[in-house]
């Protein structure tokens, strides 16, 4: 199953240097289980950060050279559209769920799906070929450790969740051997979408989680019967929606 992993222009938050996003490294790990020669695709000023993807398991990398900060979407869509029409089209396109270094909205995969007319599925933690050919079984991460197992018809775009297995170990030799193919971008002249009010990030504390609604002075029970205590505990859990017992 031919798989393409989209590698974004991730930046270190402190130094601002280009690096490989961990999420996309995890995506490479998932791709390597389906395809013995997964390919990478990157639109950006160069391969400085993303070439580490070759060391994590990619076999080849397409770099479309575009000025920094330019909207990568037209170049991505054009490149993928031609490769989808070629005689060996990619069956699966893997992305991160949010970028790490640009505007970080996580919209690129969705806009790409719209442009290419492909179905999209979010938050994959495990991938497996389906029983029928041209299908893929995707495990989506949900709250409380639950998974949603979706069978999807290929080709498709899938975004990867941080709970996916950790990336494959980095191998320098693999990175040196990997093939990097450079392409020039069509001059798209899309105006760079810089938001006016950009300023240094200020860390804001999250809300504290304090004791729940059911707590209060009356909730202390001194020396109840063990049966009564058990009943109180289960009632508290069910009232606060933590667990429901006796319903499968």
């Amino acid at each position: 199953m031919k798989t393409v992993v989209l590698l974004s222009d991730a930046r270190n938050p402190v130094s601002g240097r280009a690096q490989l996003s961990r999420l996309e490294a995890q995506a490479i790990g998932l791709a390597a289980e389906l395809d013995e020669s997964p390919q990478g695709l990157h639109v950006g000023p160069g391969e400085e950060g993303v070439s580490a993807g070759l060391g994590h398991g990619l076999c080849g990398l397409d770099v479309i050279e575009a000025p920094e900060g330019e909207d990568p979407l037209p170049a991505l869509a054009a490149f993928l559209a031609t490769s989808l029409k070629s005689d060996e089209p990619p069956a699966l396109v893997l992305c991160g769920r949010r970028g790490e270094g640009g505007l970080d909205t996580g919209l690129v995969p969705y806009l790409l799906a719209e442009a290419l007319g492909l179905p999209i599925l979010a938050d994959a933690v495990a991938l497996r070929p389906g029983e029928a050919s041209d299908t893929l079984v995707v495990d989506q991460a949900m709250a409380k450790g639950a998974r949603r197992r979706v069978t999807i018809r290929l080709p498709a775009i899938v975004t990867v969740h941080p709970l996916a297995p950790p990336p494959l170990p980095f191998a320098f030799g693999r990175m040196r051997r990997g093939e990097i193919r450079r392409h020039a971008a069509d001059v798209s002249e899309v105006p760079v979408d810089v938001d006016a009010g950009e300023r240094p990030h200020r860390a804001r504390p999250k809300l504290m989680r304090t004791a729940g609604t059911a707590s209060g002075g009356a909730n202390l029970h001194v020396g109840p019967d063990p049966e009564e205590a058990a009943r109180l505990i289960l009632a508290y859990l069910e009232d606060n929606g933590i667990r429901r017992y006796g319903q499968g």
Partner: protein
Amino acid sequence: MSRPRRDPRAERDNRTVESRGRTRLDFGRRETLPVSGRMRRDPWREWAASLAGETDGERKRYDRSQRQMNRAEAVRFARARETLDATDISPGQPALRVIDEPAFLVFAVVETAGGRLSRFDRQVLGAARLLADAGDGGGAVVAVAPESVEGLGEAGADRLLHLPRAATQRGRTAALKAAVDRLAPRHVLLAEEGDGADCARRLSVALGEPLFANVEHLTARQAVRAIRNRGAEIGLAPPRLMTLGEDRAKPYEAVPCEAREIEGGPATAPADPAILSVEIVPGDPAKLSLSETDFVVSAGNGVSDFAAFRDLAAAMKGTPGASRVVCDAGLMPRTAQVGASGTVLAADCYLALGISGAPQHLQGIAGCEHVIAVNTDLHAAMIERAGLAIVQDAQLVMPALLKLLQERET
């Protein structure tokens, strides 16, 4: 300046009261609100509310759990100090807040997983309430939920828009888009988590509108989000389509709203032709790591029967945890240790059996919203921290819980 002039003498006369044969000044009585209109802090009341229930004349005990004073607790002022006139915190408030003709609408899309509002759902509703009351106010919060659940009004929803649970995210987005087109809300808020985040992005593409994702700070005037891998941020006037980060907005806590149901969207959502089958695989709490699970059942030095404890954790569908003493003794694996030198939990609920609540242990559960403590010692720190505290032998409670759970299963 047109400020009314104060007359200190008249104010003094006003406050003089006859008590035990002497004239005294009563500073507890407040006739007028301060000019700013803001409610004044009353340290006396706060002090009185922090007294634990069993305070008697001789010995004062304080409740140091730092819970916010709620309205029910405020009733205790009267008992703590008779001379203080114990008015309700906000006197004269109506019991229900009704917005009949909203000036505009704010959508809050909630998941209501398991048929109830989660903490995150409440935060999304609270943020929507903030935007609806912004400026001149008069906006109405429309909770967009797959089912009608309890407590929507208390969480700040004026209206309820019923969108049936769709089989696929694509269908759900189509139904939501139809509702947005029909009702033209000023803002649409979703949670930046799981299906909410996915739905927000699909909606953004379908509407052709930008998405302001993962808002970290939201006020009536601006919404702030991080960009460049948290190296920079942008703040704008709250845009139309936003997703809210977890624990970033306060839930609504004032007078309940009415949560009146309004005409639903289209009954049938189109299916996604590319999706062939969907199946939910429930998570196994025993295999989850402590940092990922939502419910931890934990044992301390007060537990001696560890076989029963493991059975109990499995039967309660919780992830087993332990205090350091237990892990040091080799009774539980080191990976199960909760606390400063173990795992700091992100769970919603923590059941502590025979754990004293040492500071290093409490650090690990600082983020837990619900804590249940079973301990033989009434004065243990864990009992003080707990939302439900049971002073009883854990060795007796464990078999009783197991028995009750078995009865429920059958």
